[in-house]
């Protein structure tokens, strides 16, 4: 559809100042739209702050690959402009294979990525150990994806928003949105922000504003250490991750550690469904760290300075919802990014604004349209 010509205060009202909302605001402003971002708390303070900030090309499905790959290229385009505090670093990912079975997966991935033009390199046991001396001995090997990177997400979100603001975008922060409609956004003080199009970019909270969409909270724990430069050099992810992260029914943990540009080590990851309490669960944290220690025994000696939790916005097919919200003309979604919101924020913004302006997109948009998972009626 095309953007309706209206007498509204803004062409676009984006609810949610996480990295997805901020990226959408920047793309909208860059495309000449008048835009307001409404954030109840801190820019990049929700799942954006809770996540790792791993910019990664994924291969779960063709659609997931297409969006992550496209998004990563968009990140690379802006990389040299990013301020220092975004801490962009192309450290690469190593998918770690513990055994022969996982090494077969490494080979499959190598083919998959190579066929699609992503540079990768297989590491044997010795090369893996040389790349990451703090991994335990006895691991089988890994796949290095050198183009993957890490960022510090809250500052990335703030940068995106600042860019939008420099192009005229407005920010309303510290105010909660209580309802969305075709006419705009109703705030907790009963005032209304009228907008041609409203976008729900509130992550795991998005079903509160657009009931009926299938977005579930998926809780995660993370831990950050003091500074140990060089202790970890690449983002390291176990290949068992694929098996466990795919499990929708049960809680899972995976070895997933990240070198921060500060020299700190970020240790993950855990996934839990059906838990709404953000409190840190000692047992889950213990399981997660225990898994990390299996791969990297020396990690137990690092000083842990903070732990936290966050909620991913999970969809059944692990693809985000980007586009018109079924049942509404002028209400759009940019949510459901699960653990890939930092990576795919840039691509999401393009795909969303492309739809609003009737532009053609760089990748097919059908797999991400909310209508794909909305067979049932949604009450208006």
């Amino acid at each position, binding site marked *: 559809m095309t953007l309706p010509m209206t007498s509204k205060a803004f062409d676009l009202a984006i609810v949610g100042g996480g990295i997805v909302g901020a990226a959408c605001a920047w793309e909208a402003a860059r495309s000449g739209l008048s835009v307001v971002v409404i954030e109840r708390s801190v820019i990049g303070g929700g799942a954006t702050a809770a996540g790792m900030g791993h910019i990664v090309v994924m291969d779960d499905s063709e659609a997931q690959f297409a969006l992550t790959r496209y998004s990563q290229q968009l990140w690379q385009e802006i990389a040299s402009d990013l301020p220092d505090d975004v801490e962009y670093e192309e450290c690469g990912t190593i998918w770690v294979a513990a055994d022969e079975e996982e090494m077969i997966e490494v080979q499959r991935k190598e083919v998959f990525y190579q066929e699609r033009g992503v540079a990768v390199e297989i590491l044997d046991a010795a090369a893996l150990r040389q790349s990451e001396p703090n991994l335990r001995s006895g691991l089988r090997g890994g796949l290095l994806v050198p183009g993957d990177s890490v960022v510090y997400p809250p500052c990335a979100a703030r940068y995106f928003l600042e860019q939008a603001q420099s192009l005229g975008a407005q920010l309303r922060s510290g105010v909660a949105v209580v309802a969305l409609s075709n006419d705009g956004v109703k705030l907790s003080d009963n005032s209304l922000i009228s907008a041609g199009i409203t976008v729900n970019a509130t992550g795991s909270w998005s079903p509160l504003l657009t009931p009926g969409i299938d977005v579930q909270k998926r809780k995660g724990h993370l831990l950050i250490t*003091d*500074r*140990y430069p060089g202790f970890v050099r690449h983002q390291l992810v176990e290949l068992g991750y694929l098996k466990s992260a795919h499990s929708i029914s049960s809680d899972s943990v995976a070895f997933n550690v990240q070198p921060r540009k500060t020299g700190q080590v970020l240790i993950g990851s855990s996934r839990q469904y059906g838990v709404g309490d953000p409190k840190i669960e000692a047992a889950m944290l213990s399981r997660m760290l225990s898994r990390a220690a299996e791969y990297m025994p020396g990690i137990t*000696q690092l*000083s842990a300075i903070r732990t936290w939790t966050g909620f991913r916005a999970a969809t059944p097919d692990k693809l985000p919802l980007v586009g018109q919200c079924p049942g509404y003309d002028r209400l759009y979604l940019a949510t459901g990014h699960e653990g890939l919101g930092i990576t795919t924020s840039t691509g999401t913004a393009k795909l969303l604004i492309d739809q609003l302006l009737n532009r053609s997109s760089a990748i097919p948009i059908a797999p991400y349209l909310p209508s794909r998972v909305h067979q049932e009626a949604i009450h208006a």
Partner: protein
Amino acid sequence: MPDTVMLTINGHPVIVPDGSSVATAVAISGAMAFRRSVHGEPRAPLCGMGICFECRVTINGQSHTRSCQIVCQNGMDVQTDE
């Protein structure tokens, strides 16, 4: 109980009265800094009671150890950010 203990700080032997904290030993050793800050500034203890983390050094290979809270022991190996 001996009256003094000997430890090494940045490779140099330092003798301090028994019961001294590692922070004291580092100060006596004349090391320029206990640690370097994120931007490379020299830092030394502020609170003296284990809260500020400015006195962090590496003791027996354990980095980020608060020197003001650890009592010197014979043979300890202490490294600071010089």
